[in-house]
C-alpha cells in the first residue's frame, strides 16, 4: 500500500534535493542572462507556490493573487526609484513632473528609507488580503464567487494603477535607473547573488509552508477545503482559517512582487493584469496544485516553454499552452504531481514488500 509519494521523509528529501540543485545552478551556468532568467522563474515559482497554498490546500480559487504581487512590486519599484533620487537636486521622480506634481506626494515619502519601503511593500498587500479575505469569508462567499470577486478587485486595482499617473506613472510604469542598493552593496539583477537571494526566499517560504502544512493549521485548512460545514461543527471558525490562508498566500505573492522588481528593475500595471493572475493558476494546475514543489515546477515548465520553445514555435505557443491546460484540467486534475503520485503508487504497490522507505 505504501506510496513513496506520501512518505514524509521522501518528501523532505525531494525538497532538499530540489533546492540543492537549484542552489548549484549559477555555479554551472556562465551566462548572466540565463542566471537572470532563472531568477525570474524562481519568482514566478513563488507565485505558483502562493496559488498552490490558497487554491490547492485552502480550496479558495483566487484569481487575484496579482493584487498582492502588483502592490508589492509597486512598493519595491517606489523604493528603488527613491534610491536613485537625490533629496537636493532631484527630489522627485521625473514622471511626476509630467503630471504637474511639484512635491513628492505623502504616499511616496516613506520610500526614501529603503528598509521601510520594502517593509511597506510586504505589509500593505498582506493587510489588504487580510481585509479582503475578512470581507469575503465572513459573508461565506465561496467557490466561483471568490474567483469573481477577486477578479473584480484585481481589475479595479489595474485601472487604478493606470489612472493614478502622478503616483504610478500609469501605463509606462516605473523603471528605476539603478539596481537595488542593499547595505552599501549594489544587487546586480544579473548576478548570481540576485539569484541566490530569490532562491533563499523561495526556499524559506516553501519549507516554511511545507512545515506549516504539517502543523495542525495545515491540517485544518485542508479540512476546511474538504468540508467547511463539518469543520465549523468541529468548533473551528471557518472564516478565520480561510482569512489566514488567504492572507498568507497574499504575503507569499507580495514577497514575489518585491523580488521581481529587484530582478527586472521595472514595474507597470501589467503586474495587475487579469491574464497574468490567471496564468499563475495555470502554472499551479499544470504542476499540481496539491503539491508545493509541483506548483513551482509547473511555473518553471510553462515559463521555460515560453522562453525556450516560444522562439521556435512563435505563433503556436498560446495554442499549445491553452490546449495543454485544457487537457490537464480534463484528465489530470492534480497536474503532473498527481501523475507522479499515481505512478509511484503503482510502483509502491509492486515494491511494497521489498522497500518500505521508498526511493529518494
Amino acid at each position: 500500500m505504501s506510496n513513496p509519494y506520501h512518505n514524509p521523509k521522501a518528501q523532505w528529501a525531494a525538497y532538499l534535493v530540489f533546492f540543492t540543485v537549484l542552489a548549484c545552478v549559477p555555479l554551472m551556468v556562465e551566462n548572466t542572462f540565463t542566471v537572470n532568467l532563472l531568477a525570474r522563474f524562481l519568482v514566478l515559482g513563488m507565485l505558483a507556490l502562493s496559488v498552490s497554498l490558497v487554491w490547492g490546500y485552502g480550496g479558495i480559487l483566487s484569481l487575484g493573487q496579482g493584487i498582492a504581487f502588483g502592490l508589492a512590486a509597486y512598493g519595491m519599484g517606489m523604493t528603488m526609484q527613491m534610491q536613485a533620487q537625490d533629496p537636493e537636486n532631484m527630489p522627485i521622480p521625473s514622471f511626476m513632473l509630467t503630471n504637474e506634481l511639484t512635491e513628492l506626494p505623502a504616499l511616496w515619502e516613506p520610500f526614501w528609507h529603503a528598509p521601510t519601503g520594502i517593509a511597506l511593500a510586504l505589509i500593505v498587500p498582506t493587510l489588504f488580503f487580510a481585509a479582503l479575505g475578512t470581507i469575503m469569508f465572513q459573508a461565506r462567499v465561496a467557490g466561483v464567487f471568490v474567483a469573481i470577486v477577486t477578479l473584480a478587485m484585481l481589475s479595479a486595482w489595474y485601472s487604478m494603477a493606470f489612472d493614478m499617473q502622478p503616483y504610478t506613472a500609469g501605463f509606462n510604469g516605473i523603471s528605476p535607473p539603478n539596481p537595488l542598493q542593499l547595505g552599501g552593496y549594489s544587487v546586480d539583477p544579473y548576478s548570481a547573488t540576485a539569484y541566490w537571494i530569490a532562491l533563499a526566499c523561495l526556499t524559506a517560504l516553501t519549507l516554511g509552508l511545507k512545515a506549516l502544512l504539517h502543523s495542525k493549521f495545515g491540517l485544518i485548512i485542508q479540512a476546511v477545503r474538504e468540508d467547511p460545514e463539518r469543520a465549523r461543527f468541529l468548533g473551528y471558525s471557518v472564516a478565520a482559517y480561510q482569512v489566514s490562508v488567504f492572507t498568507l498566500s497574499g504575503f507569499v505573492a507580495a514577497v514575489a512582487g518585491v523580488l521581481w522588481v529587484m530582478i527586472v528593475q521595472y514595474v507597470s500595471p501589467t503586474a495587475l493584469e487579469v491574464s497574468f493572475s490567471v496564468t499563475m493558476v495555470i502554472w499551479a494546475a499544470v504542476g499540481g496544485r496539491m503539491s508545493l514543489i509541483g506548483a513551482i515546477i509547473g511555473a518553471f515548465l510553462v515559463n521555460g516553454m515560453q522562453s525556450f520553445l516560444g522562439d521556435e514555435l512563435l505563433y503556436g505557443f498560446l495554442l499549445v499552452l491553452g490546449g495543454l491546460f485544457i487537457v490537464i484540467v480534463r484528465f489530470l486534475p492534480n497536474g503532473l504531481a498527481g501523475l507522479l503520485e499515481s505512478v509511484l503508487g503503482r510502483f509502491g504497490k509492486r515494491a511494497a514488500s521489498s522497500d518500505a522507505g521508498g526511493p529518494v
Partner: protein
Amino acid sequence: MALLELKGVTKAYDQLKVVDNFDLKVHRGELRCLLGPNGAGKTTTIDLITGRQKITGGVISLEGSVITHWPEHMRVRAGLSRKFQVPAVFKGLTVRQNLEAAFTRHTNPVRNMFVFRDREARERVEEVALRVNLASRLGVRADFLSHGETQWLEIGMVLTQNPRILLMDEPTAGMTVQETHRTGEIFNTLKGTHTLLVVEHDMGFVRQIADRVTVMHMGRFLAEGTIEEIERNEDVKRVYLGGGKHHAHA
C-alpha cells in the same frame, strides 16, 4: 439541572411548522434516543440545537447558559458535537488526519500554526480509533472507506472532541447488520461517561442502546419513556404502522 434543555422550540417555513413547540430535557450521562417517522422533525431539531438552521422560536440552553442564537462554532466550543445524517468526513484526508482535525484543544488559527506533534492528540486519536474499529485503517484516505467505516469515522470524530453532549443523527444509516451491532456496542461503552442524543430508525439498534426514548411526530412531542413503555404505546404504534386513518395527536 438538565445538561441540554429545549423549551418551546419551533421552526417554521412560511406557514409550515417543521418543529412545533418542542420540549426536551437531556440529563448528564444519559443516552437518549429520538424517534419518529420520516418528516417528524428530528434532524431539524438537531440542526436547531447546533445552529445549522435559524430558529423561529423557543429557547435552547446548555448547562444553564442560553445558546439559542450563538454561531455554530461557538456552540461546539461550548460542548455540543454532532454527527450528520449523511456522514460528513473530510474525504481527501486520511483517517488519522480526520481524527486529529477533530481534536480541538485549540481552535485559534495562529496558535495552531505552531502545533506540530501533539502527544495528547496522538494518544486520543489512537484510543478513539481503537474504540471505533479503525485502528488498522489510520493511514487510509477517508474516501476509500466503506460506508459503515465512514460512519464510524464520523462517530470517532465526535468522540475525539470529548464534548459534553454528543448529537448523533442516524449513526447506523446504511450499515450492515453486523456493523450496526458493533456500533451499538460502541455506544454502550459510552454510557455513563458521556451524554448522547441519538436519532435513529433501526429499532434493533435502539433496543440495544437506549435508556430513554422520546418520540416525535409531525414536529411535536408524542411520547417519552423507556423502550418497553414506548413499544406498548398505542399512539406510537399508530403513527408507525397506521399512517393516517386514526391520528391521535392533539
